């Protein structure tokens, strides 16, 4: 149960960090995040599951496919809207539109069936009195490595510094000589790739179908609401909370009750702390 919590938490952290990245750099709530997750799952399903290409190579393909989708969304859609729009709602509606676009494309291309892939590694580890399948362990380790890699990238590289700068002060970042449009497009691509990677990892555990997008978008929103929108430690904390609550809830409660309780708890929580655990008060 706790082991499942850890597996979920690190993967959710990937999702939450991706959406946080996009939110803080571009001030866009990426409604298509769950759809990007779903497409990542399908890329792995086809490459690894059907065509028998190496799992890790498939994950690299996920990065390329989703990175390109994210880059295109920013370059061809959001950038234009940002330049001509007079209201913030415009980019929000566009974000909803991209979600519908991806979901319907997925339905027509991939169909509506639930798809799974053969295990990447087999075997089971015993930790105390809990059993941990090697497949889940692999997913956990990969997700953890990606989270750490991302944090290092954002903290210590020039590009990461430029992304942080862009999130904090767009205009001043122009004045530093940063090609803001390019950094934003790469940032969107990276955020999308993270969502896709989480999908490519979790498909080995839960499988994937064209409809899971909204579920994961909502989970991503819950996580950043718990942690605080646009704050990196908040995203990680939100992922840990949601991952464990979900793992424990599914173990102890019948089916759909868990998310009912999560939503009720979230509403109560937001009444008392609308900015999330680590966010700054709004306004």
């Amino acid at each position, binding site marked *: 149960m706790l082991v499942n919590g850890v597996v979920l938490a690190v993967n959710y952290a990937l999702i939450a960090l991706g959406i946080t990245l996009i939110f803080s750099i571009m001030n866009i709530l990426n409604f298509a995040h769950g759809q990007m997750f779903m497409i990542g799952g399908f890329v792995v399903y086809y490459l690894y599951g059907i065509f028998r290409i190496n799992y890790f190579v498939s994950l690299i393909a996920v990065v390329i496919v989703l990175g390109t989708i994210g880059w295109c969304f920013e370059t061809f859609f959001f950038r234009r809207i940002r330049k001509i729009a007079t209201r913030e709602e415009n980019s929000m509606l566009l974000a909803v539109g991209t979600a519908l676009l991806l979901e319907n494309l997925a339905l027509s291309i991939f169909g509506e069936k639930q798809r799974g892939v053969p295990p990447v590694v087999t075997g089971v580890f015993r930790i105390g009195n809990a059993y941990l399948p090697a497949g889940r362990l692999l997913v956990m380790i990969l997700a953890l490595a990606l989270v750490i890699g991302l944090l290092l990238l954002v903290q210590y590289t020039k590009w990461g*510094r430029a992304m*942080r700068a862009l999130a*904090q002060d767009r205009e001043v*970042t122009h*004045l*530093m*000589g940063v*090609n803001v449009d390019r950094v934003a497009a790469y940032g969107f691509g990276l955020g999308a790739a993270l969502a896709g990677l989480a999908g490519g990892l979790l498909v080995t555990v839960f499988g994937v179908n064209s409809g899971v997008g909204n579920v994961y978008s909502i989970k991503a929103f819950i996580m950043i609401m718990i942690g605080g929108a646009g704050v990196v430690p908040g995203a990680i904390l939100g992922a840990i909370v949601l991952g464990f609550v979900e793992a424990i809830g599914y173990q102890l409660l019948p089916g759909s009750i868990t998310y009912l309780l999560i939503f009720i708890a979230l509403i109560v929580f937001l009444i008392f702390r609308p900015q999330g655990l680590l966010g700054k008060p709004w306004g």
Partner: protein
Amino acid sequence: MYFEFKNVSVHYDKVQALQNVTLNLEQGEIVALIGANGAGKTSTLRAITALAKLSSGEIWFGGKRIDRLEPAAVVALGVSMVPEGRHVYPFMSVKDNLLMGAYLRRDKNDVKRDLDRVFMRFPRVRERLKQQAGSLSGGEQQMVVISRALMAKPKLLLLDEPSLGLAPMVVRDIARAIVEINRDEGISIILVEQNSRMALKISHRGYALETGRIALTGKSTDLLNDDHIRKLYLGA
């Protein structure tokens, strides 16, 4: 002419911010732009760095026309701007703030040497290196943003109200630093100030802006003694 701002007009929506403003600067000069709020001082600087689009006119720097470039390209030519209200990156360390200033530079050793130069000029900045820039005092933040601009190794430095909201003693330190930067590094400076007295004292020439036009221009020493300027801007 090293830098020329020729018949420039700037509009924000329908409001005219600059009307046919012409000003220039020789290499190595400090030129002060003084004037009341809304006179067009900040719009002038924003036009130079391409943050504001020109509705007419031309801007030339070092023999190149720069008014059709992107902001990043203007910076690459050696123009650095310190915006009004300081604008450090509040959630970044002071060191990361400085490194952002050197974003376009490739030579790491060169950047390191310039970091040391900046620390010599502003020892306080070195003391605060690991702190979040947002946690510093106003004067320290001003030093950080000037240092950040210097890290770009500019040829022309644009300073927007560096004295705003600072205690008189800190203003004096900043003024001294501006003079030294100009003298020691040979950086040309356009200084926008509401503190007209300070600006005219440390600059070679000055322009007084009134509602988007140049009202008066001349040597700073002459402007300091001009009756019109004294009455309007120096409160004497």
